């Protein structure tokens, strides 16, 4: 509990660390299966690449890239297992959940880049169509298809399943579902087969294999080589259509956006919070998805001078944490600072209330930084460097101290050079807006996180 081990230098080499983490993951039996599939995938991809160069078919190459994408998705699955085991570290104070998102994003983007490359290649081939040998084309197709389907259906890939269910549906899925709905309108009996949404990866695998079969047939019958390029373009476009919504979804998580479907609920909660007894306003509310499905948020609550901040805090957290699992609430009580008091540099604004023990943080801003003091600090129209982010994180909140008069430690904080005090300003949660003095920070969290005392504030956005 005592010392905060914040910035331990890494002792081991990069590969040593990697090996250790790998051992951690390999301890789980489920990951063995993934590792097995991964190794089969590598072999399979190697063979497929060989056949690609021997048949000179770009459509098969495009299909092979889907196999490579499978490899990425396996890696993502492995990462998600690792993430589940890993506790948040002081440097990654939000935990490693986002690594999963990043992996999904990276693999979908890589698949799209591969598709882009295929498009470029096929544009070149459009000008000069080389001859295609059909020898291994069908074999390669079926090897890749069976392997892909086997992987997709036998491994429960949590992150990708989540994303593919969360996105509104790829273009391919849209078309298939609309067609099947039309078909079901004519022949009602088919609805049980077609109406459930198909897994997009299975769909694209099947569609790609179909395109390759057509390619094979046309080349065999007519020697119509251009169909190879055409089906490569088709596969690439389908890849785009499937991957693009997923990368947009995961990219939005990475961009710290509020998911649109919770905005209504959040609005409702914020309205409820702002009507609580003692709450004057709720501002600077930020909510974003941390990983897949877990919401994080920070909120500033300004309360009346005679309100019981603990009570407000309890109510606010109680309302919000049903939706937001990682929540930071910052409570301001600024009415008791009279503007006249602020003219003095420090110390003068230390006030005590009978039943609250509040240490107003000393005024650390330099004169030119000080915002015009009002009882309600103006909400910045465009977010400046958000201090809500720089609020002390889970542990660094020096919330309550009794007995303030004994030592004006504010001076101690203030003696540093400019950069240091600025740093403190941003890093330690003394709000940049001058008038906000006493603050409380409460946070609710998943219960197990309460023991984590060595966590430091969030990194800046």
């Amino acid at each position: 509990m005592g010392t905060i081990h914040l910035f331990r230098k890494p002792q081991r080499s990069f590969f040593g660390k990697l090996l250790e983490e790998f051992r951690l993951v390999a301890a789980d039996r489920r990951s063995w299966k993934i590792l097995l599939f991964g190794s089969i995938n590598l072999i399979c991809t190697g063979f497929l690449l060989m056949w690609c160069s021997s048949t000179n078919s770009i459509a098969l190459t495009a299909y092979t890239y889907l196999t490579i994408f499978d490899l990425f998705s396996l890696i993502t699955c492995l990462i998600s297992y690792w993430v589940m085991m890993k506790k948040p570290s002081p440097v990654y104070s939000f935990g490693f959940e986002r690594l999963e998102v990043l992996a999904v994003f990276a693999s979908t983007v890589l698949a799209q880049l591969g598709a882009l490359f295929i498009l470029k290649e096929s544009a070149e081939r459009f000008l000069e169509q080389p001859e295609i040998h059909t020898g291994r084309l069908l074999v390669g197709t079926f090897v890749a298809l069976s392997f892909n389907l086997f992987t997709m259906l036998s491994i429960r890939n949590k992150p990708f399943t989540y994303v593919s269910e969360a996105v509104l549906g790829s273009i391919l899925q849209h078309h298939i579902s609309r067609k099947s709905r039309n078909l079901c309108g004519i022949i009602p009996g088919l609805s049980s087969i077609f109406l459930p949404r198909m897994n997009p990866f299975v769909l694209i695998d099947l569609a790609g294999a179909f395109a390759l079969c057509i390619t094979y047939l046309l080349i065999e019958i007519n020697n119509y080589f251009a169909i190879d390029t055409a089906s490569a373009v088709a596969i690439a476009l389908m890849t785009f259509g499937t991957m693009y919504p997923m990368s947009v979804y995961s990219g939005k998580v990475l961009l710290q956006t509020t998911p649109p479907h919770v905005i209504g609920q959040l609005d409702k909660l914020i309205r409820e919070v702002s009507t609580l007894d003692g709450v004057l306003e709720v501002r600077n509310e930020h909510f974003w998805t941390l990983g897949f499905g877990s919401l994080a948020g920070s909120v500033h609550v300004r309360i009346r001078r005679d309100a019981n901040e603990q009570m407000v805090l309890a109510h606010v957290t109680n309302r919000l944490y049903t939706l937001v699992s990682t929540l930071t609430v910052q409570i301001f009580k600024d009415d008791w600072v009279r503007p006249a008091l602020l003219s003095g540099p420090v110390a003068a604004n230390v006030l005590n209330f009978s039943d609250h023990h509040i240490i107003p943080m000393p005024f650390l801003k330099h004169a030119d930084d000080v915002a015009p003091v009002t009882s309600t600090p103006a909400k910045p129209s465009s977010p400046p460097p958000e201090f809500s982010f720089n609020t002390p994180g889970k542990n660094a909140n020096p919330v309550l101290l009794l007995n303030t008069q004994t030592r004006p430690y504010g001076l101690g904080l203030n003696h540093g050079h400019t950069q240091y005090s600025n740093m403190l300003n941003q890093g330690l949660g003394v709000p940049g807006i001058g008038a906000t003095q006493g603050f409380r920070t409460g946070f609710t969290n998943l219960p197990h996180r309460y023991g984590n005392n060595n966590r430091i504030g969030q990194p800046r956005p």
Partner: protein
Amino acid sequence: MTRQLTKWTVDNRLKFQLSLQLPVDNAAGLTKYIVLLCFTKILKAVGLFESYDLLKVVHIVQFIFILKLGTAFFMVLFQKPFSSGKTITKDQWIKIFKHAVAGCIISLLWFFGLTLCGPLRTLLLFEHSDIVVISLLSVLFTSSGGGPAKTRGAAFFIIAVICLLLFDNDDLMAKMAEHPEGHHDSALTHMLYTAIAFLGVADHKGGVLLLVLALCCKVGFHTASRKLSIDMGGAKRLQALSQLVSVLLLCPWVIVLSVTTESKVESWFSLIMPFITVIFFVMILDFYVDSICLVKIEVSKYACYGSFPIFISALLFGNFWTHPITDQLRAINKPAHEESTEHVLSGGVVVSAVFFILSANILSSPSKRGQKGTFIGYSPEGTPLYNFMGDAFQHSSQSIPRFIKESLKQILEESDSRQIFYFLCLNLLFTFVELFYGVLTNSLGLISDGFHMLFDCSALVMGLFAALMSRWKATRIFSYGYGRIEILSGFINGLFLIVIAFFVFMESVARLIDPPELDTNMLTCILIFNVLILLIGVFLHVLADTLGSIGVIVSTVLIEQFGWFIADPLCSLFIAVLIFLSVIPLIKDACQVLLLRLPQEHEKELHTALEKVTGILKDAGINNLTIQVEKEAYFQHMSGLSTGFHDVLAMTKQMESMKYCKDDTYIM
């Protein structure tokens, strides 16, 4: 007569309802209308193929005259426009006259397009229902097109037209284009031909453009005549009268024509049957079935089911029309089956037909606006209420040219994005010069190099776009602003570079094993080009390009001077490794930011600051620093609130484990 009027108002109300896409329960008995519609459309295709054959011997104005005459005859017979309905005022006659003139012009354009492009292409271009064209136009010219699906449909449509324009090698027509001033039957056709020749396109391409124009005119015409048809007491009556008027209009022209020019027709008697089929299939049957189906079937479904059979049958007839199988269908029997080469099926036509079918499908489907909204609750009437949220709505209100103008202004405001922009422009310029020169000299190497450069430019475009977006104001969804987009685009760019490095690596390994001969003439050209890129790269500090240029220069010099063909793959190998190594830190940084890591440059300072805090606390007499959250009051309230009681219990247990509840001093 009043009954008919009410029926028509009811019909029109229904139509408006349908165009508003209100759900109409019409599942029962739908199938028979669909079958009827499909059958009619196939017959229409037959009729148009027939009329193409007819137009080879009959002059176009005469043809239209006969068509209108026949239609007017039948419709007057069926509808009895004079004996039924309200009497027509003088104003209305003038309107009917205008209607007839517009109808004549459109049919003239249509059939002239038919003679130019052949029946297959005419069917593909012209047989789109109004809703398809209207939603296409609304996507193109208004910003609220109706979502990405519609945009996709519009893109498909445009691709299809472009396919017909560019990739359709209609050989016969190209031959005809050589003598556009040749024997033309009348001043009108001559005028149109010269107009097309003036545009500088081949005849069938001119026909494509003409048909697109005619399609737009047709839709406008239908929309404009809707009100008139209500005034007249129904579209059928209007149609009958308008056909009659147009017959009278065309009459003098046809008389003059038949006097001045000699006819190519051998016997008009043999043409009676074909004309009757055309009149029935193209004009009458189509019109009546359309008006029935529009009432019974939803507009969107009508457009979908109507366009599909006509395109498919057009494709089939296009392939088999000159084939002996279809002899029974053809009314004009040719003496011998000469192998026809005109307006044959080509790859471009098939591709464009596929795209037309797709786009008709997408554009005609009703737009579902409810998908993006969040469900709030129910209105007092019981209809669901949705909350439309999202940035797409905010940004979609701009029109495209204004958006481009504004973003250009923004780009040029700041120096870094300005540099990227200039570099991009230069790169694109080079690319197009290269592509153009490659096409001119028919050099495949140059063209493929141009594609390479285009590929590389995409990264620049993305970076530019990210730089632009990062300055957008924060919204509800992007509550921290768009600043992270730049980081994300940096990450994607890093991945992009890795992919490029990987491909270059693979390629150079393949070349190391089997070094190909290079064309030294082109190398000099590339050398000069790369020196330019190098200079720009140095100027703009674009590392990867600079390195690449250096490598290319070195390898070119080596090959030119010493004939070491191995130098090229070696150099590219080196470049690939260099790119890869230079990208890794970039990706690592971006990853760390995206994973919400504590910023590395602040680590030290934060550490010292925290230590200061602990020092102060130690001075204050608190030694064992623990992080503790809340006060007793908080817990009381928390446990008082019913929800989440178990969590509170867990918290309380933890609190007990910390022995710091002596007084009110809690240190976090």
